Each structure stands twice: as C-alpha cells, then as structure tokens.
C-alpha cells in the first residue's frame, strides 16, 4: 500500500512539503551566498597584502 492521491488532504500534505522545500532552499541560498561572498573577500585580502 502506498500513496492515495485522490484524498483531498493532499492539499495540506503537498503544502507542507512545498513549504519545507522552499524553506530549506532559501536558507541554503542565503547561507551559501554569504559564505561565497566572504570567502572571496578573504581571498582578495590575502592576495593584495
């Protein structure tokens, strides 16, 4: 037995998974973006000095 997609409760299930995916994605983009920015700044600092 596995998923029964005819159940109207899938609105809520899908919503929960979608929000989780969007949240993880957004948090990952923000943190990795921050990391690349500061890693590049640190590299440029050591090269220039």
């Amino acid at each position: 037995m596995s998923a029964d997609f005819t159940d109207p409760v899938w609105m809520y299930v899908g919503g929960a998974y979608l929000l989780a995916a969007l949240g993880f994605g957004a948090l990952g983009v923000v943190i990795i973006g921050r990391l690349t920015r500061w890693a590049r700044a640190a590299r440029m600092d050591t090269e220039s000095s």
Partner: protein
Amino acid sequence: MIQAFANPARFLSFSAWAWPFAGVAALILFAIGAPWALVFSPGDYQQGESVRIMYVHVPAAWWALGIYAFMGGASFVSLIWRHALADVAARAAAPIGAFYAGLCLVTGSLWGAPTWGTWWVWDARLTSMLILFLTYLGYLALHAAIDDEERAGRLAAVLCLAGLINLPIVHYSVEWWSTLHQGASLLRDGGAAIHPSMLGPLLTMAGAYAAAFAALLLANMRADVFRRRVEAARLRRARAS
C-alpha cells in the same frame, strides 16, 4: 576536544571538506527520504494520508530542540572558556534553529487543520514550540542590537542559557495548566506506538535534517570566520594609513 577546535585555521581546513560532505549527505538522504515518505510509505489506518506531514514535522521539532541544546552547550563553552569559535557556532546555529522551529509550527498547523479541524490548539507541545521560536528570535535580535561583537556574543550566551532553563518550565507549566483546565487528552497525536513501516522514512528524514543542519552550520560558521578576518584586516589597514 575543545582545544582541537580552538584554532580557527584548523577549523577552516576541517570544515572545508566537512561542509560539502554533510551537504551531499543531506541531499542523498532527502532524495531517499522525501519520496519514501511522500509516496511509497503506507498511509495511516486512522489518519490516512495526512500522516505524511509527520515526516517533515517531527524531525523539525526534534532538531529545533536539539539545535537549541547545541546552542546552550556552545554558549556555556563561550562563557566559561571565552572560546571565540563557540560563540561563532552558537550565532551560526540560531537562524537554522529558528527556521526548524518555524517549519515545525507551520507544518504542525497544516497537519492539525484536516486532523483536529483547527489550525492551532494551546497544548503543551505547541505552546513550548512557539516560545522556543520566540526565544530564537530574541537571541538573534539581541545579537544584532549590540555593536561590539564579542560582548554581543557573550550577552546572547547568557540569554541563551536563561532560555534553556525557561523552556522546560514553560512546557511543564502548560501541561499542569491544561490538567487544571481538564480535557486536553483528546489531542494525543502520533503517540508512542509508531508502526515499523513509518520508522524507516521518519528516521531517514531525521537524518536528512541533521545532515542539513551540519552543512548549513559549518557553511555559516566558515562565512563568519572569513568575515571576522576581513574586518580585522580592514581595521588594521585603516589604523596603518
């Protein structure tokens, strides 16, 4: 153990491979766990399809608490041994913990709406998770409000430890409070008896959340270590010129 991580340079070389490693582990676990939980696992005989929300909700609740405990430990180390990296770790963990707590609240509401017929009930678990979320926000706000970074970290550490004492008090307070009011017993969701067929996807998702936390934490800590270096170098140059 603590001394091994004391050195920021050693942390940078360790985390350089550790954070992508944890990130790949998280992606693999999500790739296995999410389809397993969403499609291939059986529906519950009582809750039906809505039980699938549990697989994104319960790990968020576990790790929201776990991350706060981690921050409490890091705050303790930061206060006692004045360990700079412990402060970086606590600060880097806070936004991830806030996200897990918020995700737990939202998915819990999405589960409650079709199951209980209401988006929110004031029982002990929901209330303490809401308080935990507010505590995370307060920690972040205090850290952001104080300019001197070292002082901000250690004052936030005091607040974090005070919150660590407050959380169980809130939890048991609401439990006693609802027994005073009587009749919160209809809200026994999930319960102790989890069917073995649900344990596989649940533990896989819990592992995925843990690996995602490790990857995001290490990446966020690396960003902070780099930022402090750049800012210290800028300060030195400004003084020299």
